[in-house]
């Protein structure tokens, strides 16, 4: 801003007062005062794209709950900006409001200016982890989460006692007794969100499944951590549908976690290590496309390019890898079906996983794929943009706010009067069922979108789909 002694004439009359702009400029150049360290600090250029219009406020789940500016995307970006300008410390308040963000990215869908909030919040979370303290119990709890979820073998081993707990009647007893209310909120939330663990948690898909019709491509498939341990039937259905539709499916057995959990909670080094492993494994597999059936994993893998952007050996490989990642609904939507779809007379609601609808902007595709099934009536929720509160491990870290969001979603689920819920993310389905149970409502049958396509190709009846055993054959 001008500080010369010969200002433009009309400045006197109008009393210009653009404040602290000069200060901003000085710091943009030097950023010496920034509260962030230099490694992947949230970029000022990305923050500048935010014009402060507030269109994100009604889209934000935490703003919907609390109506506070600092728990809105606009407010969080403002806090980041203040941190970058050295006008605010990275203290407990800063940590609180960044932690409160579910990372649902609904704000990105709502934003007219195209602000890349995903990049901003992820870089900021890394800074929060490096520069703020957490109470010992919180740290321990987080370490426990990171010691289990990203490890499919540990999840599988845990599956044995869990299966006994669930099938011996103990779980029913425990839930009815109210003893869970005595546990700390986070632990009782964890129990409430347990999936029904399969009896054979050690099942895994073969390394390769050949195309069952005229070959249209060779794709790699992510098997995932939670998905492969507790939702193996979804993986099996994914492989069956892909094979039936003419894809040779490669499922590298050495693949590990995609790093989503680490990336969404600011553990950048861990996320980067997972990403490199994943990239190397799939490069070796020699596939055109990597197919993903879990929304959270998909959004993470599509962001590897950003995560490894300044790693000279990995940046280009990561970007190329991310460009080849597709959600299962994307690949099915863009290829005309070769198998007949048998009718499936059923009224379902399609619940958008935020990491698909907002983070990947994939919402037309699953609907297009489901619309090919005759008789299937797909209804929409009153507010499909609102997060259910699951958000990765958010419901384990912030059970109170997650429950409030779950309650809103459960209410909406009940209002549409359907026979089943369909989504592309196991976390959402567990969250929704837990919310229904908390209200004393019966659970709804829950499916991954690909399970319906599979049932339609195989000609299952509604009865078989709803009550039959979920097949693991490929």
């Amino acid at each position, binding site marked *: 801003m001008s500080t010369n002694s010969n200002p*433009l004439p009309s400045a*006197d009359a109008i*009393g210009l007062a653009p404040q602290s702009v000069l200060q901003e400029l000085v710091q943009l150049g030097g950023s010496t005062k920034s509260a962030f360290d230099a490694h992947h600090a949230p970029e000022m250029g990305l923050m500048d794209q*935010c014009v402060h219009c*507030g269109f994100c406020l009604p889209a934000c789940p935490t703003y919907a709950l609390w109506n506070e500016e600092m728990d809105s995307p606009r407010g969080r970006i403002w806090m980041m900006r203040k941190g970058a300008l050295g006008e605010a410390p990275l203290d407990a308040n800063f940590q609180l409001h960044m932690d409160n963000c579910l990372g649902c990215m609904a704000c990105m869908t709502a934003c007219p200016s195209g602000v890349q909030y995903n990049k901003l919040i992820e870089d900021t979370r890394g800074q929060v982890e490096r520069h703020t303290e957490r109470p010992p119990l919180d740290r321990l709890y987080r370490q426990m989460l990171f010691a289990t979820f990203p490890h499919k073998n540990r999840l599988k081993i845990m599956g044995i006692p869990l299966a006994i707990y669930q099938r011996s009647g103990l779980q029913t007893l425990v839930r009815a007794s109210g003893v869970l209310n005595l546990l700390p909120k986070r632990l009782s939330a964890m129990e409430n969100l347990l999936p029904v663990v399969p009896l054979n948690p050690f099942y895994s898909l073969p390394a390769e499944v050949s195309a069952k019709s005229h070959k249209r491509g060779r794709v790699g498939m992510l098997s995932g951590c939670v998905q492969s341990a507790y939702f193996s039937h979804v993986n099996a259905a994914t492989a069956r549908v892909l094979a039936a539709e003419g894809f040779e499916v490669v499922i590298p057995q050495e693949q590990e976690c995609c790093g989503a959990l680490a990336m969404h909670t600011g553990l950048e080094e861990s996320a980067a290590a997972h990403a490199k492993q994943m990239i190397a494994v799939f490069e070796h597999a020699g596939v055109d496309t990597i197919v993903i059936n879990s929304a959270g994993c998909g959004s993470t893998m599509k962001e590897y390019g950003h995560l490894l952007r300044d790693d000279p050996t990995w940046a280009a490989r990561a970007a190329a890898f991310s460009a080849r990642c597709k959600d299962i609904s994307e690949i099915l939507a863009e290829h005309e079906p070769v198998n007949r779809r048998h009718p499936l007379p059923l009224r379902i609601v399609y619940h958008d996983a935020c990491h698909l609808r907002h983070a990947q902007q994939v919402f037309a595709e699953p609907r297009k794929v489901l619309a090919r099934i005759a008789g299937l009536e797909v209804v929409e929720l009153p507010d499909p943009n609102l997060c259910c509160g699951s958000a990765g491990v958010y419901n384990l870290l912030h059970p109170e706010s997650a429950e409030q969001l779950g309650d809103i979603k459960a209410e909406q689920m009940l209002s549409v009067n359907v026979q089943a819920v369909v989504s592309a993310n196991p976390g959402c389905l567990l969250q929704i069922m837990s919310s229904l149970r908390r209200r004393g409502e019966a659970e709804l049958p829950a499916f991954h979108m690909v399970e319906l396509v599979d049932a339609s190709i195989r000609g299952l009846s509604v009865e078989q789909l709803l009550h039959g055993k979920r097949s693991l054959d490929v």
Partner: protein
Amino acid sequence: MSEPNPAPNNLTPAVLDELRTLVGPHGLIAEQNQLQTYECDGLTNFRTMPGAVVLPRTTAEVADVVSLCAKYAVPFVARGAGTGLSGGSLPTEHCIVIGLSRLNRILSVDLENSRVHVEPGVTNTGVTSAVKAEGYFYAPDPSSQTVCTIGGNLAENAGGAHCLKYGFTTTHVLGCEVVLPSGEVMWFGSEHGVVDTPGYDLAGVFIGSEGTLGVATRAVLRVLRKPEAVQTLLAAFDTTTGAAQTVSDIIASGMLPSAMEMMDRISITAAEAAVHAGYPECTALLLVELDGPLAEVNAQMVQVREFCTKNGAWEQRLAQTDAERALVWKGRKAAFAAMGRVSPNYIVQDGVIPRTALPRVLARMDEMSAETGLRIANVFHAGDGNLHPMVLYDRTIEGEEDRALILSYDILRLCVDAGGSITGEHGVGREKQCVMSYQFHEPDLATMQRVRRAFDPQNIANPEKLFPTPRLCGERRHGAYIPHPVEAAGIAEVF
């Protein structure tokens, strides 16, 4: 007229403690880095840290907070969603910001009498959502309607694209509950939604008073039946003159479209990038919406298209479905916010001119753009002559923000010179108070000031807005403002 200086800090720790007992620990924000998120609204060029923010949940809490402000002479500033573009909810130093975002319930819907009773934190779209299924809508539709709240709409007398036919907020508010700057609670207009009440039209005085006369805590709004038919036409012109002439021809023929909007090339590019509405690329895009009985709309649309053709429209496109129409409007309404895609910074202005002056004023604006080297994008409600020129600039280029602000004020003066006004719907707020004296003479301003003082003798309700003051307008300032010692002492605050 002299006025007491609101600057001293009466918000002492003891007063803060009292405040905390009134709204509870979850209703009070007093930490520095949390307060920073309230230091501006949709206009970020002006920023002031508030002393505290409260988020009350009831009228009684608002009244308690305002009473406390009155008792200790602490200034307060009401805030809704903070989307305002004139700095209306910009805090005053050491003030309490009263955020109404938690007063967000729809209290009753009475369609037999076409009215809805709401709290001020309900969004503008939220009102329509509550009555849409029954075939009703709330007519005022500012572009930020999905976000902005009814309380803010009342404060600014918000308009929108469809106000050409339906009128501004003031036409649609049957009554409102207001907490006066003394802390007293009263109803302006009718609590029961009776259309006309005897005596002074205090609701009329209050609506558009920009938070200087009190805080609205409830409103009874009029909702309207959705018209039988709606048709939306997009027409592409090579010249703004052609589009402007079409607007004049339509009005002259006796038609009253529900909306007539114009967008220029830069706005089209930005909106298209944000929303992919499929707008034709052209110099001036005219959007004409007709609503009413089907036969009438059909007949009038033929005439509208003839005017478009006569004035050189090379493409005319009628939205075929509700979804297409929604997309056309989504693009138009995202146009301001989408400017972030074509320019790092911008200032949205809000001038009004007589419709007939449109081609002349637009031509002059082109010249001003060329003279200053700054791009001006234009989106406007062409039907009622409400311009929204956006001056695009880059804050990182030295001196450019100054030049942009000067240009934006020069545009307002151009509007006044053309027989118009400095604001159509965004309000004066902090941003335009210094051009108030260009539009009004001193006796006019003094009369308005007397009205204000009748409501707020202590000058604590949004004190530094609307009226020009030497403290904010008289001094030439660059960088951080340093008040004159005489002002700082509270002696000379005159206008």
